[in-house]
């Protein structure tokens, strides 16, 4: 019996779930995810928070976080415009839905529209890197934000835009329960897509661009092509996420797609782990669930001391900020790295060396 993992063929080395136990755990996770919506109501009642709604939002953001992770984590191009790109997707889906387009067509269009916009604003990435690219994409954020707010004949301006529920055929995803399966399917698709693209020639080119763009160019990677492609794919995913979001919340308003959302996306992938598929998932779970969980002590304390509710709800934001800082100090490589450490520890326990 081998005392470790030995891959004897390249296929084995490249497989997504290399070990038996991993496959077992993945199946368990899959069953758990399928069962969850049926038991969500008692869980929500017990916890005093809407867990189904939270998990739906997590799925939606996972799609977008994967997109940004592809761009920032794998290709090494920073973007502070992804909040706005998500908005472009949301508004595209919303406007098309109001024009009577079916959901299955409007959602991909949201992705393509965002991809187009993202590629345009990605052009400076050929010349600019690091902080300079951050500022260039920040400009995209402000331009799009301004357009969403002021092009009111199209976007409804600050009053927002109502979106009908998603429907395929006669089936309407008009409740959190029904939407869960849609969001889950798309989140799984996005995860598999990201996992797979990183194992292709394109994915390796992205990593080469990130690690040393000069060497990459020398060995024949077309920098312009791959940087724009990365912006395109990344914006496509974040646009899909925006489209889903629009169909889920059923009202879009510009104030959601501000710079704060762009920063939040960056925070998700940094807290989770840059350049890691699992990282974006952990990051999203952390960033979406923590503020909701912090609401619980606030509500409990409000029952006891109703007068300090006003103070406590401001405190929630501060506690959230402090927790993020602590995480970055003690786990700069993200939650995905911490997960690996924990797993490695238990693998050899109690005989680790």
């Amino acid at each position, binding site marked *: 019996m081998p005392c470790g993992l030995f891959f004897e063929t390249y296929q084995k080395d490249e497989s997504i779930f290399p070990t038996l136990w991993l496959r077992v755990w993945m199946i368990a996770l899959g069953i758990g995810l399928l069962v969850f919506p049926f038991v969500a109501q008692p869980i929500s*009642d017990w916890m*005093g*928070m809407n867990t189904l709604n939270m998990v739906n939002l997590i799925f939606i953001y996972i799609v977008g976080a994967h997109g940004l992770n592809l761009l920032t984590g794998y290709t090494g191009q920073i973007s502070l415009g992804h909040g706005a790109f998500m908005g472009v997707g949301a508004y595209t889906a919303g406007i098309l839905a109001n024009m009577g387009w079916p959901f299955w067509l409007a959602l991909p269009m949201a992705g393509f529209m965002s991809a187009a916009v993202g590629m345009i604003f990605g052009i400076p990435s050929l010349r600019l890197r690091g902080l300079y690219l951050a500022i260039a994409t920040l400009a995209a954020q402000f331009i799009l934000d301004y357009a969403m707010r002021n092009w009111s004949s199209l976007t409804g301006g600050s009053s927002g835009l109502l979106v009908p529920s998603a429907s395929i055929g006669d089936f309407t995803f008009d409740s959190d329960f029904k939407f869960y399966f849609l969001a889950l399917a798309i989140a799984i698709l996005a995860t598999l897509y990201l996992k797979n693209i990183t194992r292709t020639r394109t994915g390796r080119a992205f990593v080469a661009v990130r690690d040393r763009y000069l060497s990459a160019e020398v060995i024949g990677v077309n920098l312009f092509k791959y940087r724009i492609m990365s912006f395109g794919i990344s914006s496509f995913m974040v646009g899909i996420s925006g489209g889903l979001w629009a169909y889920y919340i059923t009202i879009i308003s510009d104030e959601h797609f501000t710079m704060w959302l762009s920063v939040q996306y960056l925070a998700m992938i940094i807290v989770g782990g840059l350049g890691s598929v699992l990282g974006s998932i952990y990051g999203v779970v952390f960033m979406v669930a923590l503020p909701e969980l912090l609401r619980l002590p606030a509500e409990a304390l409000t029952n006891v001391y*109703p007068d300090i509710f006003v103070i406590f709800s401001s405190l929630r934001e501060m506690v959230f900020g402090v927790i993020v800082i602590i995480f970055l100090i003690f786990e700069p490589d993200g939650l995905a790295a911490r997960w690996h450490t924990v797993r490695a520890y238990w693998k050899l326990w109690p005989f680790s060396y």
Partner: protein
Amino acid sequence: MQRKLLVTALAVALCLAFTPMAMAKDIKVGGIFDITGPTGAVGKDYAAGAVAGEKYWNQKSVLGGDMLKLIPNDYAYKIPEAVNLYKKYKDVDRVFVIQGWGTGDTNALRPLVNKDKIVFFSASYDGNLTDPKKNPYNFFIGTSYSTAIRLAMTYAKDMGAKKVVFIYPDHPYGKNPIPAGKDYAKKLGLQIGPDEIVNLRAIDATSQLLNMKKFDPDFAWIGGTTPSTAVIIKDAAKHGLRTKFMINCWGFDENLSRLAGKAAEGRAFGMLPVAPFGANVPGMKDVVASAGGKPYTLHYVKSWVSMMVMVEGLKKAKAAGKLNGPGLRAALETLKDFNTGGLCAPITYTSTDHRPNTTMAIGGIKDGKIYLVKDVNFPRQKAYIGW
């Protein structure tokens, strides 16, 4: 087998542990307030008033043993966050009445509220919420913004104004009453200058005011909240404008004179749907007592009245044996000249008109204090339901 027994035992224990909670009769009320967002400056007092109101009505135990349980949460003036909170209140807390806040989110929630039959008290007095044909479950207690802006135009006309300008933030709260104001100003024969946008978090309004100075209006409408209103008024004084300002109800309170100082005196006039905090009216004694010595603003009074009207509705709904959304709605629609102890004008809702009243006061500032300029009343006309 043993495990099965254990699980059953655990389940039974859990059920037992939670039964008393289910037995206690709580009437849960969802609370959507803005503490940390752009309207937090006025939202804080509003939330505090609602919380104090809950305590007060519970101590008086007006609902025959049933206790109000307000679940206040901050949504930072973000519409999607309000939708999230709404879903929580609906699915987890299973409320049938919500105390909400802003114009944007109240309007965004209208379709959901109507579908789920949840009575929604808003702090937005937006005129288009008053048509029960479209929004049967939306209620509020103050004179509607549209009525306020019409009354402001009438007052301006009475004071001999010829030219008016509208200043407002680019938010549904600022924008929604403007068409009503312009329509009525035209009817009165007032000349309307170009609109100016001053945002809720503005710290400077010089360019807008210099622009306005060219048109030199006699009166200007401000549809913002207190901090941005103070900025406008201070800058107007600095640049020597002779314009007087009519201010919507969230931009004029006890803090305005603190923020704007002498500039507010003789220049700022507020449309007041409720009496200022500590005013000499019979209902105010309990309000001030509940504040525990803290100097709140009139926004505290607004939410207090909102809770008072809700409690009155709940009382009637309970008497009718229909303690649910449609029952509360029906009960509220029977309110006729409901006396709030002088905190605001008597409130009447009918099944065809959700305008609570059409009477309000115009307030000014003298020596740092709010004084009553005039009580004004707009005839309750059918033509103005819903806008």
